[in-house]
């Protein structure tokens, strides 16, 4: 039994990017070249070489030795900066362009959506474009016939289905285009950023449709710049950088690699070596970790769930009153808040020597999506003396959900704000009084 959907090995793609500058050319050379070159080019062309001047061209590897395997039913995100090779990878996998070296094996039918509305013709009506676009994307005519009403309803363009699409608003145009694409039933779906279309409501619909696609056991490859969308939709992500696979694994980990490659996003830090332990001869920090309610130590936390910040420390010198605290800093370096240990027993009483564990719970539905770094610290009071402080000791990533029970409700776009509390809303309806 073969449960592999896509197997990619050593995939590389070279592009020619313009000619290198040549020095010491005279007009005579240029004239001679102008005369001879067409013949040379024609000769090379007939021998099947693409560009006559290939050897003079500067080349770039858009993909270099990319290997990975995707199992059937997996939903995988592909992220990376501009020019990382994401689009090239999708184009190679959709057979639009061919690799220079390496190979890919694809098990099953593929539909790739590198653009919404490819092949739409502005002079044709919505109905005609549906059939044309469907055929281009690989749908059979009777398949479109069968889904016609469903597609039209999804796109919400019932009234205008026989109007040429050049009279459509851009929103209608995109909705219709996406609706056709969303009704494809391939075994493998390759999508490039097409979700950046339409209004929020429609985005939500598309995202839901995509989630359904994933749940139907279809394999999905999803390229995006929208990190929260990737973490919401794809359990696994591949990070490309300069044509190479830089990271491949659980989305929250890969996204955190991408977001803060200089800062490690780790849920736990322990100091076993005495010489490295932060602190002094009064108190030492032994460990700090991020926990869920279930006690699991994890970087990825659900936006709805409380997050436990647990500090383990050893008091070496008895008789001090301690202040245990931590700062929470977001990706932009903004200090979101600071929290102090307010345990009623210890906040006023000197402590005896020994090991302590203090845990603070950040409530669910407070932090927005994103990565947060924890800077723990311990001071002694009277006099106020700093004892230890570890910048960005641990971090966690908050992942929002599309279930509708979070602060974003049904909105799928970028929700700004430094916190994201779930507030109690109440809306009243009052009949308008008409005075006559």
């Amino acid at each position, binding site marked *: 039994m073969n449960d592999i959907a896509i197997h990619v090995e050593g995939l590389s793609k070279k592009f020619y990017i313009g000619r290198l500058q040549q020095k010491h050319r005279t007009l005579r050379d240029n004239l001679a070249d102008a005369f001879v070159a067409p013949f040379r080019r024609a000769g090379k062309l007939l021998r099947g070489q693409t560009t006559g001047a290939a050897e003079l061209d500067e080349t770039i590897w858009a993909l270099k030795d990319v290997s990975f395997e995707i199992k059937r039913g997996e939903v995988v995100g592909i992220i990376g900066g501009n020019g990382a090779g994401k689009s090239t990878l999708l184009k190679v996998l959709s057979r639009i362009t061919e690799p220079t070296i390496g190979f890919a094996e694809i*098990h099953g039918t593929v539909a790739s959506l590198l653009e919404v509305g490819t092949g739409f013709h502005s002079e044709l009506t919505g109905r005609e474009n549906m*059939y044309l676009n469907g055929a281009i994307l690989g749908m059979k005519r009777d398949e479109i016939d069968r889904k016609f009403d469903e597609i039209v309803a999804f796109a919400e363009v019932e009234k205008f289905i026989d109007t040429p699409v050049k009279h459509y608003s851009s929103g209608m145009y995109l909705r219709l285009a996406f609706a056709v694409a969303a009704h494809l039933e391939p075994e493998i779906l390759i999508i490039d950023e097409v979700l950046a279309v339409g209004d929020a409501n429609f985005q939500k619909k598309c995202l839901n449709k995509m989630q359904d696609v994933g749940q139907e056991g279809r394999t999905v490859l999803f390229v995006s710049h929208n990190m929260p969308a990737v973490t919401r939709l794809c359990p696994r992500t591949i990070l490309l950088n300069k044509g190479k696979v830089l990271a491949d694994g659980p989305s929250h980990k890969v996204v955190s690699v991408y977001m803060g490659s200089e800062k490690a996003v780790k849920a736990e830090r322990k100091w076993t070596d005495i010489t490295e332990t932060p602190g002094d001869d009064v108190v030492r920090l032994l460990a700090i970790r991020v926990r869920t309610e279930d006690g699991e130590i994890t970087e990825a936390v659900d936006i709805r769930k409380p997050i436990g910040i647990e500090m383990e420390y050893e008091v070496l010198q008895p008789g001090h009153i301690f202040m245990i605290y931590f700062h929470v800093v977001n990706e932009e370096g903004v200090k979101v808040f600071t929290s102090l240990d307010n345990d009623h027993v210890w906040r006023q009483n000197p402590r005896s020597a020994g090991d302590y564990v203090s845990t603070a719970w950040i409530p669910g539905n407070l932090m927005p999506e994103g990565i947060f770094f924890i800077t723990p610290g311990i001071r002694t009071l009277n006099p106020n003396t700093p004892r230890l402080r570890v910048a960005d000791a641990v971090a966690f990533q908050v992942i929002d959900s599309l279930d509708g029970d979070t602060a974003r409700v049904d909105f799928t776009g970028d929700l700004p704000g430094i916190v994201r509390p779930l507030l109690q809303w109440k809306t009243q309806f009052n009949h308008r009084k008409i005075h006559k």
Partner: protein
Amino acid sequence: MTKISNVSLTVIRPKKGWQTLNLKELINCRELLFFLAWRDIKVRYKQTVLGVAWAIIQPFFTMVIFSLFFGRLAKIPSEGIPYPIFSYAALVPWTFFANGLNQASNSLVGSANLIKKVYFPRLAIPIASVLAGVVDFILSFIVLIGMMAYFGFFPTYNVLWLPLFLLLALTTSLGVSLWFSALNVEFRDVRYTIPFLTQFWLFSTPIAYPSSLLSEPWKTIYGINPMVGVVDGFRWALLGTSTPPGLAMIVSAAAALILLISGAFYFRRMEKNFADVI
């Protein structure tokens, strides 16, 4: 063990040298071929005042001009047939050929966006372009039937051969288009070559004059231009001119076939770079 899968396997790897034509894949996408041709037909005369009349105006007015200058003034022989119908019977397949060539040669460049964003057998694009011309052909052919009635020509059983001659025109048009459309992707020079070539080709085809002006063996060699076979075939099948097609026709058919096959293989060979170069 779960059920044994029977999913299709596609292997993507660099291709070198000549490729097979992969006609099976092409046949599988015949619906796409149909929709592309249908789109070309639907869109061609959109936002024009005269609309579909253009399909008739082009060959008809060429016929009028030819009749005036070549028929009346130059008194070019027309094998005893009234010059207007003599030239129009040739202009109908010629217009089909020339328009097909023109449209199909620019078809890939015109579909750059499709090529860069979706995979399907690229051959479908020029083929659909040439096929879309069939509608124009039918319209101008209806006029030809009218003219035949007017001049009192009634077709013999020879007319049964007509589809073959149309097929020959299609083969020639497609063969040349495959070469040019593939070349046009990298060398836009092609775009400027085509009007010039069409004009040159028009006069090397017996449209304004009869091929009987030539004697053997030149007449047979003349058949290397497949449009000679097409035009002579049309005249013979419809107007009953001269001798039935002979050796020259075989030469024409062979030439057209060579053009088509070589064009298709060349196209397949260049195809892999289309998305990168276009």
